[in-house]
């Protein structure tokens, strides 16, 4: 069964009139109109320009429009806003909207079991919201694993997960315990590695929360109660866009386990710049958690660590957990010693750290290509 023709998803909408600019979000997009959630309005018929966008899904489209109708807040899920009617005399604008709607209305296209999931981090202290996400995800996405939702209940835990994993999207509630969502978004935007991660802010806080999160750098703000159907449709497009945008070989996921934070940061930077998705772990607890949740295609393990030897970790993964993905030992030990340990642990091979980062990247790529 194909889940087609939902026809609704969420986009960032920036409205510019002659007197004011408003940043908000819109849904109910058709080839001729969109509904934008906002308290601002002008007289029906007022000409505006609207820029529609969503990171990694929709390149900004500037569309001339006019206010078609004004809606006051109704039932939950029916926020106040304005209906915009597009001026589609430009064939370029018409073409872009038609192409976008074609993508929205297309049936789900996840087919290959080996596709990497679209990874989303939901930062919300409400268990119910998290349960609803998990339930909704399983229900909406036909193929299990197309979308992987990870949870964090506060900013600190979220930061820990963001530091050790890579996410395609982060959804952040504004009202979080101890540190609010806007502060977390600011941190994320100021971090070199994370600054381009798409962020959707959510809240019951209305305009104040919207302004705080958007000025902190959120790409889109969506009011609670969430309309899950719209949000999942947006996530679906994000996941599919991601599938189309990146060749299969470059989507491979690598988990790096090393007790040196410097080595982890360097290895991750090099592998990410080579196009891989990377998670890191600095201790056994983190490694085990990442191995299960990140589901890597390749595992790199340092050998001499305070908690355990990497060859013992590799041996246990193979013999006890039945892990089939390639495992490489990485160490500054002598080559002969490293080769002996790799063979004994049934690892797929080894890399001397002294060979340098370009060689490490080359070996990863080679191994992933031969085991595809």
């Amino acid at each position, binding site marked *: 069964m194909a889940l087609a023709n939902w026809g609704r998803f969420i986009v960032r909408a920036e409205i510019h009139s002659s007197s004011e600019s408003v940043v908000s979000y819109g849904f109910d997009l058709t080839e001729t109109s969109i509904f934008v959630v906002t308290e601002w309005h002008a007289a029906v018929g007022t000409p505006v320009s609207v820029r529609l966008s969503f990171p990694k899904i929709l390149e900004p489209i500037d569309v001339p429009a006019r206010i078609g109708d004004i809606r006051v807040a109704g039932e939950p899920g029916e926020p106040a806003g304005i209906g915009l009617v597009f001026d589609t005399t430009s064939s370029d604008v018409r073409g872009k909207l038609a192409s976008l709607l074609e993508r929205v209305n297309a049936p789900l296209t996840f087919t290959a079991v080996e596709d990497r999931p679209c990874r989303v981090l939901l930062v919300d202290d409400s268990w119910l919201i998290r349960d609803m996400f998990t339930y909704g995800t399983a229900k909406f996405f036909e193929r299990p694993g197309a979308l992987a939702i990870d949870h964090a209940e506060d900013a600190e835990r979220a930061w820990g997960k963001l530091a050790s994993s890579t996410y395609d999207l982060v959804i952040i509630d504004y009202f979080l315990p101890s540190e609010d969502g806007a502060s977390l978004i600011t941190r994320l935007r100021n971090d070199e590695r994370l600054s381009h991660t798409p962020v959707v802010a959510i809240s019951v806080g209305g305009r104040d929360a919207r302004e705080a999160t958007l000025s902190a750098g959120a790409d889109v703000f969506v009011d609670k109660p969430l309309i899950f159907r719209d949000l999942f449709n947006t996530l679906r497009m994000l996941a599919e866009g991601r599938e189309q945008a990146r060749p299969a070989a470059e989507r491979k996921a690598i988990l790096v386990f090393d007790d040196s934070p410097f*080595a982890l940061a360097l290895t991750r930077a090099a592998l990410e710049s080579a196009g891989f998705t990377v998670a890191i772990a600095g201790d056994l607890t983190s490694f085990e958690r990442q191995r299960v949740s990140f589901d890597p295609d390749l595992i790199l393990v340092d050998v001499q660590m305070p908690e355990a030897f990497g060859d013992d970790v590799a041996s246990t993964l193979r013999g006890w957990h039945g892990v089939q993905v390639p495992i490489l030992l990485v160490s500054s030990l002598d080559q002969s010693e490293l080769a002996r340990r790799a063979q004994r642990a049934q690892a797929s091979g080894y890399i001397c750290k002294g060979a*340098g980062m370009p060689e490490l990247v080359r070996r990863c790529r080679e191994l992933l290509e031969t085991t595809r």
Partner: protein
Amino acid sequence: MDDLLAKFVPQFVELARSRVAVALSAAAQYDQAATTKVARDLHTLAGEAGLLGLKEVAPLARDCELKAKRLHASHTDAEVEGLVAALRQLAQLIEGIGAASTREGGSA
């Protein structure tokens, strides 16, 4: 890769300076108990240098690591002196890399 080096070499130099200073202090004070951690830190330093492609630092750091391990096993003046000398050489090498990195950063 050049971008990565420009970013990570200065960080490495800072870390390495601190590790070598701790190792020199432990060796100079005949702190046998600290040598296990010193050896481990030098091993880590060797690995980090190797990943960065610092071909001269990695083997020298490994040599220091082995000397620190030997010192832990049998604490003699000759071994202390050997470790201190190797560490000073390592410190000098790291300072040279730091200076070169600053020059390159400044001229970029």
